[in-house]
């Protein structure tokens, strides 16, 4: 096996492995603290997620949103920027899709309504991403600070629109969309009955492929990665770094915004205040464990979605909040230990003669 392939496999396998091992160890401790048997809880978690069609459908549904926010964070990190505004961009995308679906007349055929709503979601997410992008390109404003602050601004703004302008009385959600709603997967596969898995998953899978194609097969993607690795060298080679940064954050925001259709068009049929529930922040974890690679992002999204759904499955035995703590620990462990473990592995290989 040549060294490059070996390194690629190590890059790809190590973070999820660390994530899994740490989740198991810390999870055991927390379960024992609650006075339950870890093995029984873990079995329940697996049975409730991958063990039956409903649970699996829920995992797919949650992974769909997380794939979008994970791709968004990964796209920005590939350009050397850290977009932690996916939460607000996701909400804005959902809002855009919900409003577009409301604006369309009832009975608009799906082949028109769905693309319009999807475009609206990506446009709104992209607009939110354009703010830190433009400020970075024009003034050198640090995108981490701008994206954090923008999260709060966007969520407050959407809360205002929904609570003051568009809501159904006594609720914090908009009326149901007239067109653009996405059918559930259970219409095709009966076993998914009751789960929220819907056709958004196909659109998001296409988006993941497109993100891969863009990053690794196009000139713009190559330039984006070059800027991420060495902005000065890229500038010297004639790449417009500021514009690349701006565009990367716009694309990043659009990807996060796309995730909004999963809830709004695929699940509820309306925009609801607070629907994001931290999926934007979890996108950081997804990108981290997925090594900023679209395929890795999809797999990492499945992992974190399994934990989220698994929390509900085990709630009878231990509080479901256990998985929120676990998700945090997993991120800390991966961010902290992966470089270290990799260094130790390298040393071990070179000591044993480096047979590669």
């Amino acid at each position, binding site marked *: 096996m040549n060294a490059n392939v070996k390194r690629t496999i190590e890059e790809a396998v190590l973070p999820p492995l660390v994530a899994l091992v740490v989740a198991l160890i810390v999870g055991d401790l927390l379960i024992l603290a609650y006075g339950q048997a870890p093995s029984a809880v873990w079995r329940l978690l697996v049975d409730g997620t991958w063990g039956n069609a409903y649970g699996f459908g829920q995992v797919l549904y949650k992974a769909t949103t997380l794939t979008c926010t994970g791709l968004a964070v990964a796209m920005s990190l590939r350009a050397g920027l*850290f977009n932690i505004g996916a939460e607000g961009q996701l909400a804005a995308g959902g809002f855009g899709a919900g409003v577009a679906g409301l604006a369309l007349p009832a009975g608009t055929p799906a082949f028109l309504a769905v693309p319009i709503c999807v475009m609206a979601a990506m446009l709104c997410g992209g607009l939110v991403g354009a703010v830190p992008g433009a400020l970075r390109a024009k*003034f050198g404003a640090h995108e981490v600070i701008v994206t954090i602050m923008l999260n*709060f601004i966007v969520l407050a703004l959407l809360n205002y629109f929904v609570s003051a302008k568009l809501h159904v009385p006594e609720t914090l959600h908009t009326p149901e969309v007239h067109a653009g709603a996405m059918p559930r997967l259970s219409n095709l596969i009966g076993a998914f009955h009751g789960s929220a898995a819907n056709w958004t998953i196909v659109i998001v899978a296409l988006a993941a492929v497109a993100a891969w194609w863009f990053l690794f097969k196009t000139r713009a993607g190559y330039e984006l990665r070059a800027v991420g690795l060495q902005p000065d060298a890229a500038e010297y080679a004639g790449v417009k770094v500021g514009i690349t940064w701006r565009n990367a954050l716009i694309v990043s925001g659009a990807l996060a915004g796309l995730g909004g259709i999963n809830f709004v068009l695929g699940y509820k049929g309306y925009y609801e205040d607070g629907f994001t529930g931290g999926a934007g*922040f979890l996108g950081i974890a997804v990108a981290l464990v997925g090594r900023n690679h679209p395929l890795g992002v999809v797999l990492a999204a499945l992992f974190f979605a399994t934990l989220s759904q698994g929390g509900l499955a085990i709630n009878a035995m231990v509080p479901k*909040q256990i998985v929120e*703590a676990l*998700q*945090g620990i997993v991120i800390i462990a991966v961010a902290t230990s992966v470089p270290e473990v990799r260094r130790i592995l390298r040393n071990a290989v070179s000591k044993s003669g480096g047979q590669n």
Partner: protein
Amino acid sequence: MGALLFFAQTIRIAIPYLFAAAGGALAERAGVVSLTLEGFMLGGAFGAVLGSYYSHSAWVGLVVGVAWGLGLATVHAVSAIRFKADQIVVGVAINLFTVGITRFFLQLAFGSSSNSPRVAGFGGEGVAGAVGFLTNPLIWMGVLVMPVVWWVVQKTTFGLRVRAVGEHPMAAASVGVPVNRVRYVAVLASGALAALGGVYLALDQHQFTDSMTAGRGFIALAAVIFGRWDPLRAGLACLLFAAAETLQIQLQAAQLIPSQFVAMIPYVLTIIAVAGVVGRSRAPAALGRTED
């Protein structure tokens, strides 16, 4: 009377910001990103309620709350400084973790998913009672924390080291400053200080409620940035943000401006500040970088 009430209410709202921003200013000046303030505060709030509930003493609550802050700060410090992990990633993760673990222990200790039972606090309750206001030691500590941190950063040897480590770690190391140790101390102090903000919040309300810090740690971070990483300016920013909130609460009946727009003020001001539209807000040069 109205002015006095306004002032008292502003101080009351500002105290948690002042504690957290003091911690944030210290850690960021030492070059460590303070996205964690929110988590430290929430941990401090939960620790305070745990301690006060089991001991019936607010002082024990204070100590336990600070211990939670120190514990979380240790995690942040070890991964950021010892293992050179990405501080932003770990910061976000610590916030997620704290929300989860406080919910888990809320369930474990009090069997509730939303709030703890009532616990002992310092002095009087809520806004009412000027005596309670004046006898709450956390109010006095909160008012004094920023001048003290300013003095530490600007006038002491330790403060000089903090600044050196945050601007030029290599240069600091070459003259014998123990870079990592200074950063450890700064991050642990920021954990304790931000936790005090949470302690105040929880004991003031005499209970812990799920995610009760509600973004206050980020407002504190905004104050640090808006105050250009200077403790005194950051303290003034805290007061400014708190005054805006007080104004909003008092004008609520009049419905002049929707509350959401008032809530945006700190964040909008901070974005304007970092964009450098009116005077550039410049971060410590080595902020977020530990690869020295």
